[in-house]
């Protein structure tokens, strides 16, 4: 009866799960805020506290994400894509395509029936194609990131953004505010712009159903709706779309070393 930790140390959020016998015991999420070490410690404490365990009770740690090298315990590094794919497939076994909208990158992953990666595409060169752009515009509009989705759903006439660059899009958003466009319409326009980027990737990859969306972007109902409409697919959202990578890390390390 071993206890396994899965960690996903992302550029914006650090995520931890504790699993036993492939059953999820607890999870925790903390902002990374540029200090990975303190984020890792905080997120471990949260997950261990909820499971009423100490780090000494843990048998194995599997980890993925940009900041994984900062983990102050011995661990096994697993690729982000494998973890996303395995973890999401654990929660929703029918999925064949996974769209992950993260802070620094967006990915489209084709998943096998076993939850393995069949193929993948990553956009990580440009903030306009990642969840980062949502945060940038949220700041311009002085809107809480959590409220973006609700506002977007109320839009009647989404603003058309003409640029693909996050920096220029920020300027354009400011101009639209000055011209009197509503927050709702600006956010919906932003969701369309981000969707256009992801749709271009999806077009190259093909979307086999069922499709699922994970990462911070999946928390944004407006984005999920607009993206689903544009792609003509129902996009499933896991109950907690942020921890799929961490779950995958725990599962894969169990299978490899358990």
């Amino acid at each position: 009866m071993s206890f396994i930790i899965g960690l996903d140390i992302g550029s914006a959020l650090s995520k931890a799960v504790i699993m036993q016998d492939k059953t999820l015991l607890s999870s925790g999420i903390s902002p990374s805020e540029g200090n990975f070490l303190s984020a890792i410690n905080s997120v471990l404490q949260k997950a261990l506290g909820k499971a009423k365990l100490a780090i000494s009770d843990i048998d194995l740690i599997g980890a993925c994400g940009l900041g994984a090298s900062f983990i102050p315990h011995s661990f096994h590094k697993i690729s982000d894509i494998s973890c996303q794919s395995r973890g999401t497939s654990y929660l929703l076994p029918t999925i064949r395509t996974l769209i992950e909208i993260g802070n620094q990158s967006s990915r489209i992953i084709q998943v096998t029936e076993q939850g393995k990666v069949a193929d993948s595409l990553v956009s990580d060169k440009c903030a306009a194609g990642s969840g980062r752009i949502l945060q940038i515009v949220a700041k311009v509009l002085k809107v809480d990131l959590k409220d973006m989705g609700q506002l977007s759903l109320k839009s009647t006439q989404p603003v058309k953004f003409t640029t693909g660059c996050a920096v220029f899009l920020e300027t354009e958003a400011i101009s639209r505010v000055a011209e009197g466009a509503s927050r709702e319409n600006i956010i919906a326009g932003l969701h369309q712009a981000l969707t256009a980027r992801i749709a271009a990737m999806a077009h190259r990859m093909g979307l086999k159903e069922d499709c699922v969306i994970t990462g911070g972007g999946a928390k944004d109902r407006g984005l999920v709706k607009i993206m689903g409409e544009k792609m003509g697919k129902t996009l499933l959202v896991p109950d907690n779309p942020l921890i799929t990578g961490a779950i995958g890390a725990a599962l894969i390390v169990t299978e490899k070393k358990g």
Partner: protein
Amino acid sequence: MFYAGLDIGSTITKVLIKNERKVCTTVIKPTGAEHRRLANEIMDEALRKLNLTTANISYIVATGYGRINVPFADKQVTEITCHMRGINWLFPSVKTIIDIGGQDSKGIKVDNGKLVNFVMNDKCAAGTGRFLEVISDLLGVKLDDIGEISLQSTRPTNISSICTVFAEQETLLQLSKGTSIEDILAGIHRASASRIHSMVKKIKIEKDVAITGGGAKNIGLCKALEERVGFPVIVPPEPLITGALGAALIASEETKKISKEELIEKQLKRRWEAVTFFDEKPTKG
């Protein structure tokens, strides 16, 4: 006879007035939201310096991103042509022009005073003045100073991101690691130069190379570009003005194409415009 070139860039507006022999005056001001008003103001300022009125100007050519917002211009010409003409007049040996503007960057190929080819990036802030602006803001250093500061670097840091937003994050990470501002800025200039170089090399970089636009005022960026290109580059004494200079040169040519009567009519019309348009005051809310 006087000829005027007006270059309304995304960030800076420039006016140049010349006669047959020489450049008489130049005015350089930041571009605001109101292009039209600024075009008038800056033109007025240039004229005042020379004790002239708009009616004394034979021909006005407007160029740049805001060129359609110059109601008193006789002709609009793209900034690519104007930069090419301006540089060709100053440095006839130049075959490749790298223009680094506030929100775009361009590569222009010249052959015997003719425009042969060009490439342009206006889709993305990377490799434009905007990129440098974002980083200098973040570091709390004046944009005018970052070039000099970067030259003091001993170990330039490696900035791997192309995207301005991600480079901003990388910069923060470097700061938290204790990397000096000099080393970060040197890395930033290298990253920017690499981006510009990979765009311009699509049109084949040939000697001589001139750098224009606001980016040319940044010695750190010019040095980084020289490293990339592999030989020294020419920087005009005032790299901001080459577009307006080219526009004024075109203005003097256009004057020769029209008859004396037409020219007088043009000037009279402009005098009338001067009364009606320039006296217009901003209306508030």
